[in-house]
């Protein structure tokens, strides 16, 4: 089972892992990751998420297929928000199901690492104090070098 969605409104991140396991007795483990919009100590009003419609879904699907190829996964779900997201709201949910825990954990981590660097989404900060971040005067969040490092810890192939 593969569930891939880009959504413009709030969503229930807990529903994804449950959907992968519902009605099955071959799933021994699910791992669910949820990424949330943080308030940055009260300075952030909202994050605005721009995306490339069509390519975003295609890239999420490609990442899911690659995870299924690398580990014996019985299900993968990826949901990503676009639009305006407030502190405390979910941005992304990734869930994996497998017979055993190692594959479920590795699959979910792999998908998150690749989503960060390869899925066409861009975050812009709307700050509560109207004071621009000096490292990003136009509000667009800069990519983190750590994200490239996280991606490259997975061997090719």
């Amino acid at each position: 089972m593969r569930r891939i969605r880009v959504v413009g409104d709030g969503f229930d991140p807990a529903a994804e892992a449950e959907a992968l396991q519902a009605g099955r007795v071959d799933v021994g483990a699910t791992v669910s990751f949820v990424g949330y919009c943080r308030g940055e100590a009260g300075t952030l009003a909202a994050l605005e998420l721009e995306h490339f419609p069509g390519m975003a879904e295609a890239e999420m699907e490609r990442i899911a297929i690659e995870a299924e190829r690398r580990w014996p996964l019985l299900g993968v779900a990826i949901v990503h928000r676009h639009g305006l997201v407030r502190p405390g709201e979910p941005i992304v949910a990734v869930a994996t199901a497998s017979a055993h825990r190692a594959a479920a954990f590795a699959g979910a981590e792999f998908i998150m690492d690749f989503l960060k660097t390869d899925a066409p989404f861009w975050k812009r900060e709307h700050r509560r104090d109207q004071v621009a971040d000096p490292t990003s005067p136009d509000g667009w969040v800069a990519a983190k070098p750590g994200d490239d490092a996280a991606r490259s810890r997975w061997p090719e192939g």
Partner: protein
Amino acid sequence: MRALYFAWVRERVGLAEEEIAPPPGVDTVGAVMAWLSGRGDNYAAAFAQPGTVRAALDRRHAKPDVAIAGAREIAFFPPMTGG
């Protein structure tokens, strides 16, 4: 071919999308970027730092050396920051 711009590339160019016709010889992703840079200050600002802007051909990531032949759509955008 159709060109799409996202995030600060879109803002600097001042357009979300447009039809472009790269001349003969402008046959790779990187060559299209260099050619666009020469079309005006807005494009120059968008493509100012080589290596910063990423591209996709027909909705697949494409490095600068990839040939554009046969592609109907080329997209330019900053490094991704989703997830």
